[in-house]
């Protein structure tokens, strides 16, 4: 897989007439350099991820994926591009009426016609995340940490080129956080562009995985090192 990269060109996002949540952000996120975005609560970290992933449209500026101005594409093309993106949402957004396995398989719905292969892959991912035999359960039957790992499995099942993580370890204990970071390192080595937003000091401490840490404040992305 060729190395993926996301570019923000004067990216601005504003809700109504309030001050912009994101204000003319110019940044490049490359697969070779997974990025951790830090910032206070309400600084706009989740908004940034949602705009990068095509869930929200910027009010000004552009997001380029591999050089393509995807944020300005018409809806069908943007939807198709979003299949290249895996997102772990802060609030997980698992479907309560589906089983754990069905939740993990959701990103495969527009891609596959035969389910045997993806189902096996999903089971393998669940085992990798320490959830063997939980495929038939409802997400409600799991703990918060387990549900978050299901969200990870859902984000990774389609082998995304762009992986966006919003507070991805907030419900995890130290051991599981280490496992997730190992997995993240493997994913980054495969050429996936990773952007994570988190308060978690354990992620900030993972210098090897996140060589670049940015700080989002007052709509500006600063302090990259």
């Amino acid at each position, binding site marked *: 897989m060729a190395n993926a990269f996301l570019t923000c060109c004067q990216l601005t996002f504003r809700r109504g007439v309030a001050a912009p949540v994101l204000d003319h952000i110019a940044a490049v996120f490359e697969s070779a350099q997974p990025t951790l975005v830090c910032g206070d609560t309400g600084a706009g970290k989740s908004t940034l991820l949602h705009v990068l992933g095509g869930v929200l449209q910027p009010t*000004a500026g552009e997001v380029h994926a591999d050089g393509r101005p995807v944020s*300005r594409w*018409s809806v069908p093309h943007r939807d198709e591009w979003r299949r290249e993106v895996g997102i772990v949402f802060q609030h997980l957004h698992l479907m309560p009426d589906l089983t754990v396995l069905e939740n993990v398989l959701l990103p495969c719905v527009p891609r596959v016609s035969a389910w045997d292969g993806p189902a096996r892959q999903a089971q393998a991912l669940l085992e990798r995340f320490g959830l063997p035999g939980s495929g038939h359960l409802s997400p409600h039957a799991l703990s918060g940490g387990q549900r978050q790992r299901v969200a990870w499995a859902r984000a990774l099942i389609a082998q995304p080129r762009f992986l966006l993580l919003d507070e991805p370890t907030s419900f995890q204990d130290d051991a599981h956080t280490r496992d997730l970071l190992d997995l993240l390192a493997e994913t980054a080595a495969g050429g996936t562009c990773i952007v994570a937003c988190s308060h978690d000091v354990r992620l900030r401490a993972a210098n090897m995985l996140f060589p670049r840490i940015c700080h989002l404040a007052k709509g500006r992305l600063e302090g990259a090192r």
Partner: protein
Amino acid sequence: MSWHPLVLAIRLLDLIAWAIYAAAAWRLLSVLPHWQPQAAGDRQLRRERSLELVSYQAGWVAVMQAIGFVLLLVGVSNLWPSYVPGAMCGTGVLQAMGPAGEQTLIFKGVLLLLLYCRHTAERLDRTHPNILLAPLNGRLLLLAAPLMALGTWRFAVAVAGVDRHEPVNCCAVLYERIDTGDGWLPLAGSSTMPDGIWALACFGGALLVAGWGWHHYRRPGIVGNTASWLAAGLLAVWGVSVVMALKTVVAPYVYQVLYHPCPWCFFLVAHGAVGFVLFGVPAGVIAEGAAVLTARSVGFHRPALEEAARRRMAGAGLRIWLGALLFAFAAAAPMLWWRLRFGAWMQ
């Protein structure tokens, strides 16, 4: 007749279409003069989002107008004749409505054709990630305004013109005679062409159009302007010959009377409402022909959309081929059946 449920339904559809159209046109008028595809500022992005909304609105306007047109055909052909003394089919209703009745049909028909061309251009545009045809699609939608206005106005005049106490003589119109007060005189502009010419033009034209469609299906190409104008001319001439041939050549076999050149009796339930097929299929073929010409024009002027235009032309070509053959079969079937049963043609 102003309070007939179908008239109210058509007016309601028109009203909804106008409300949606007005909102779309207002947006277009504020977007098009400032359209800057190279800019990525907040105003341009707002304009792009506005255009997304306009495209949905245009789709709903087309749907409302199409439903209204079908209801109008059903009303004229099958429901309103009972309200007009002396009317036995749509011919009598249109006679009662005066020129405004036919004008309504023409304006609404042309409007639908225009909206279909716009829809074709927009679908082609959507095959490309960037919005390339926004100004063209916007102008085409704005061009619909006069046709919509004329359609609405002439329909109001037509309905108001129906006098339920004034009988009409629809057969006099049919037989191309008009009562001048001093006797029945031939209607000006009556066809003097022999029926055989119309039959040849209709069925020969159907084969030509089918061949043209097959050619586009097999080898869709961005041809020059001359070929496009020739194709448009062929479709127009064929459309006229279809109406004339149905009236003068096919009608006797469907109605089973020697001479009754009425286009509207085809739509009567008593005749199986075959008019919806016999007139609807050629109308569909002509619409697809217009789609071919639109796709050709788009592909010619926008190289980025050429491949999509070729695919659209191939799809339209297949539908034209099928439609022209289906029409030829459907129109010839009653004639052939008669010939097989009785061993002679109706003269």
